[in-house]
């Protein structure tokens, strides 16, 4: 059984504080390689930058289980230089532009500090004050002599912190999945072959997962991600019937999302393991959104796939919030499930 404590939280902190925007995942890749090398039988970095690690089990009739977590995060790319430290940028991945104005950022390999600025409120008419500023009305300002290159990536300068039962950080989506996958690889049970895929470019179209699945050709797959909760109070005291998950109720098992009907055998299996082991879990509300499952399930001749997520609030924003216990329960549910996997699980529908 994996232990869960300060070391795991420190690893998550390290993973969350680095910047790895889709297409530029090097900073997370470095940490992953360093962490997993002593534990994997085989590690390779593929043509897209995925880290693909195999840890073989023992004995005959082992199921090849692909475990997936994406390394990339949403962020920005510098696209033009306006002079005197002011740069135009575009967002990479699904960022709501309303989260941008007035935020601190780091840009480029040197983590050059900057801010996202726009027109001050005093110079606006009253109509403008409640109007969304589109990304092309915003600038990244690095200070009068600040330098960046067109093509440099950037993200929010938020520092990871622990508060009470929670984690407050940028890019919990999906560093919490990456940290989970590292722990699972370190404690891989021997009844399965673990095929660990730390993927790239999830946020811009699940591109890393597609080739990772084609490389591993697994018997089944589990995508480990982080999903929005949307569990805030509804307006004027109305009941919130639009929540996706709820913080504090444990790992979210997917049944149906925007791109995948998750394999019903695996959905049932995970919930049965949770019941048997007394590990709390919840079903993510069926609806939109998705994970790397969307690419993995369709790969090759089809791969039985399920997703499990740690819930978070405020997706793709400067600060997301997750519960430590939800993460711990996610890790435990996945580990307990891996141990119980037999070829019979996916032998017939």
């Amino acid at each position, binding site marked *: 059984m994996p232990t869960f404590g300060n070391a795991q939280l420190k690893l998550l902190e390290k993973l969350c504080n680095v910047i790895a925007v889709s297409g530029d995942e090097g900073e997370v890749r470095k940490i992953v390689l360093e962490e997993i090398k002593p534990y994997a039988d085989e590690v390779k970095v593929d043509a897209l930058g995925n880290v693909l690690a195999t840890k073989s089990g023992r004995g005959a009739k082992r199921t090849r289980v692909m475990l997936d977590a994406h390394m990339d995060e949403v962020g920005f790319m510098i696209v033009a230089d306006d002079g005197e430290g002011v740069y135009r940028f575009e967002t990479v991945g699904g960022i709501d532009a309303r989260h941008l*104005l007035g935020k601190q950022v780091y840009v480029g390999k040197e983590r050059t500090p900057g*801010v996202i600025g726009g027109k001050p409120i*005093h110079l606006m008419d009253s109509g403008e004050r409640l109007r969304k500023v589109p990304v092309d009305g915003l600038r990244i300002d690095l200070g009068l002599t600040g330098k960046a290159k067109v093509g440099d990536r950037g993200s929010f300068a938020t520092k990871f912190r622990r508060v009470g039962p929670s984690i407050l950080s940028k890019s919990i989506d999906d560093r919490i999945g990456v940290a989970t996958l590292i722990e699972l690889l370190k404690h891989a049970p021997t009844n399965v072959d673990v095929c660990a895929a730390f993927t790239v470019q999830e946020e811009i179209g699940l591109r890393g997962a597609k080739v990772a699945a084609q490389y591993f050709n697994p018997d089944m797959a589990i995508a480990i991600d982080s999903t929005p909760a949307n569990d805030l109070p509804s307006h004027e005291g109305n009941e919130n019937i639009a929540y996706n998950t709820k913080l504090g109720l444990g790992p979210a098992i997917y049944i149906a999302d925007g791109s995948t009907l998750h394999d019903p055998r695996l959905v049932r299996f995970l919930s049965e393991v949770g019941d048997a082991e007394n590990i709390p879990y919840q079903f993510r509300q069926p609806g939109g959104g998705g994970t790397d499952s969307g690419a993995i399930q369709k790969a090759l001749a089809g791969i039985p796939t399920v997703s499990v997520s740690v819930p978070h609030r405020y997706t793709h924003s400067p600060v997301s919030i997750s519960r430590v216990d939800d993460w711990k329960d996610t890790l435990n549910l996945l580990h307990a499930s891996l141990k119980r996997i037999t070829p019979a699980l996916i032998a017939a529908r």
Partner: protein
Amino acid sequence: MTDILPFLKSIISVSGVSGHETPVAKLIAEKWRPLVDEVTTSRVGSLHGLKKGTGNGKRPSIMIATHMDAIGMMVSKVEDGFLHITNVGGIDVRVLPGAQVTVHANSGEELPGVIAMPSAKLLPESLTAGEVLDINYLLVDTGLTSREVEKKVRVGDLVSFANEPMELAGEIISGHTLDNRASVAALTVCLEELQGKSHVWDVWAVATVQEETSYLGAYTSAYDLRPQIAIAVDGTFAKGPGANGWQAHNMGKGIGLCMGPNMHPFVHKKLTELSDKLEIPWFLDVTTAASGTDAYPMQVTVEGIPTALVEYPLRYMHTPVEMVSVKDIQRAGRLLAEFIASLEADFVEKIIWE
């Protein structure tokens, strides 16, 4: 000239929302105490530092007003562990979603939090999805359970911006509340410069309260101290993204000397002449009516006070990432010190109109 940046960073790292300026007032008092003869607090909380002049008998005095309060927010309702908020001062609601804040809880604790923007599904259908939400739809999430929040927080608790100062390239400092703690820093530079100078007039270094809401501090301190001349120091718009009209000026290239109905033309002229003489780069800023600074209330205190306004260009006003040039702050401080040192005992009698 001493390095003012560490002090400036320290005073933009604490709160001091209008009406609740004590946290920052303590830091300023500590810094000023060795630089002045006495530090006192007004009946409404403004800080008065008196540096006595060398003149004989009843000396004239000059008051330099720098407001120390900050715009912020206040808890208006606690619901399921989330906090509804309202504004204190002119908050730009567009910067709030995702902003890091501190909740100054009734329990005495400072709780970190983040401003949450509920999704369209949780908002009235009358609102256009994807548009900017007014402050009454936003919530603060502390990451604590609802039971803990109900125990610690109550209506009226303050919420302040919590992002740390950031030093940027080109001697630029960025953070929340540079409007107007940068002026407090400029006034501190002035007091440091005056240590090596002789001045006839008494100097009242004043850090005023509640400028952002009602000018309470400037009205009451000017009344209390009855200076012969008053100068406000505040930010003006710096040229930059979204700000390139006539109101905006180059950051880092000099200070603003403002002209308009709140300002006495003679005092203004003396400041411009002195800047020229000292080769301190400056630009002319103009206001057509109310200047929106402490110069506005001070001018009409008691039987009226000759008032001037010294400015520094500031980018992204009323956001948590305001920017100023450290050089401009030092320039403003130096000009104030030189102006004070230049004041002769009979300066007021020499004031001419036309």
